């Protein structure tokens, strides 16, 4: 559970995003704290991906403020703390010349200082990330030849290689079979509990992960936040705490 006094990883206040007069997101305010497991759900076109892109500085909000670790995005430099796995991650270009190891190594690029080759620490981090995602045996395989589930693990290993404090995954299950999905959710829960990595997960399929997630945000132009999707909890309290209008959301497990 979030602690009120701590600096949140993401601190979003009164965020508006408009494109050519069209409201995509309206007065979004939310905070994400260290160690949380947050799921963001919402209909297609509801603005989930846009919200993440705004949080990562890939797009600029029309109004409102976004802070990362207490800093404005343009002043934020410690990007290695954030691991981002975009929606299209598992849909890699089949001809791209990359082995699994080539991709995972990319996770260390921003940590390298000018002119320095891969250090022992870099090599260990790449190795660890591949072990965690159980892809060490695929190390020398070309990414284009892997299955959807395997590619997904490669993409996450790349994000993990920088030893991030937070992992943001945008619909990572696109093109992944059910068995891989289940293993995948178990793995995310493990990363959150054992490695203490904050997880932000965007999905339309909340049923499968409802047991593990701490909080749930629904995004459909506006944000609705529920702080405990498993138990019946007074969201009004949370409204006060976060200064957002929140509605109660019951356990979504039964909805699927």
């Amino acid at each position, binding site marked *: 559970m979030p602690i009120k006094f701590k600096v949140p990883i993401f601190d979003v206040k009164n965020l508006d995003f408009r494109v050519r007069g069209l409201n995509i997101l309206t007065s979004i305010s939310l905070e994400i704290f260290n160690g949380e497991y947050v799921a963001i759900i919402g209909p297609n076109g509801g603005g989930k991906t846009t919200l993440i892109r705004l949080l990562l500085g890939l797009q600029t909000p029309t109004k409102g403020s976004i802070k990362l670790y207490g800093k404005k995005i343009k002043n934020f430099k410690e990007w*290695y703390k954030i691991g981002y796995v975009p929606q299209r991650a598992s849909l890699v270009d089949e001809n791209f*010349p*990359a*082995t699994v190891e080539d991709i995972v190594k*990319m996770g260390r*690029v921003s940590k390298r200082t000018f002119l320095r080759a891969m250090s022992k620490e870099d090599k260990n981090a790449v190795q660890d990330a591949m072990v965690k995602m159980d892809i060490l045996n695929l190390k*020398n395989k070309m990414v284009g030849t892997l299955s959807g589930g395997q590619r997904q693990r490669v993409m996450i290993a790349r994000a993990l290689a920088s030893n991030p404090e937070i992992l943001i995954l945008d619909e990572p299950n696109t093109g992944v079979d059910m068995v891989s999905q289940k293993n995948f959710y178990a793995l995310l829960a493990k990363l959150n509990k054992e490695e203490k990595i904050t997880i932000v997960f965007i999905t339309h399929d909340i049923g499968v992960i409802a047991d593990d997630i701490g909080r749930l945000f629904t995004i459909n132009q506006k944000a609705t936040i529920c702080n405990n999707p498993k138990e019946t909890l007074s969201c009004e309290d949370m409204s006060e705490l976060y200064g957002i209008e929140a509605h109660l959301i019951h356990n979504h497990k039964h909805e699927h």
Partner: protein
Amino acid sequence: MFEIFEYDFMQRAFIAGILIATLASISGTFIVLKRYSLMSETLAHSALVGVAVGLVAGFNPLWMAVIVAIIAAWIIEYLRTEFSLYSDAILSILLSGSLAIAIIIVSLGGAFNNSLFSYLFGSILSVSSEDVVTIMIFGSISLMLLVTFSKELYFIAYDEEVAKTSGIRVKLLNFLLVTVVAIIIALSIRVVGSLLIGALMVIPTVSALQYRVGFLNTILISLFIALFSVVAGMTLSFYFSLPSGATIVLCVIIIFITSLIINKK
């Protein structure tokens, strides 16, 4: 067999050719992966504007080609990032635009002669010692920049947005890449010619991609193909009195077709 090296001009041509093959194939890997293949054609035509200015105004055409190609590369990158235009359309517009400017400058200056043609189609006979020195200086700077930032450029080619969210200065490095490519193309037009340099940048990489190997090996195969084609092309052009640029391009295309056949699924 080695009489080819008895001529000073052939020695210069080989040095220049080997340098250019190295530069074109390594930088070509990044532009092909970024889907920027057409950029090499556009920059080669922009470089002609520099050559035209050089020929008409009496400056060193190679230096002028480098300067104009860099400016064109920056315009392309600026238009691509700041306006929502299609990249290939921008490249196409600049290609014909610069060719038009080059032709007008040359025709006004009355320099429509053989020396312009040598830049269009490349001429190993015309590579001077001064050219070799210019290629060496700019070439080593370009190569150093490419090698230094190869990991970052590879990451950007793979996924520009993820690279950005990993803290990589994507915009700056994209400008750096197009600048280096502009320099390399301008340097190459002496040997391969502006109408043919695109082939030497793009085809070795596309051939290497057929072998479906990792990043480093792709670059190495591409480098090998480019070097082989340039050496083979120059040797053939010497013995059979063929134009050097065209012979080199045909060699690289033969390797491409062979690579396609060998690696057919």
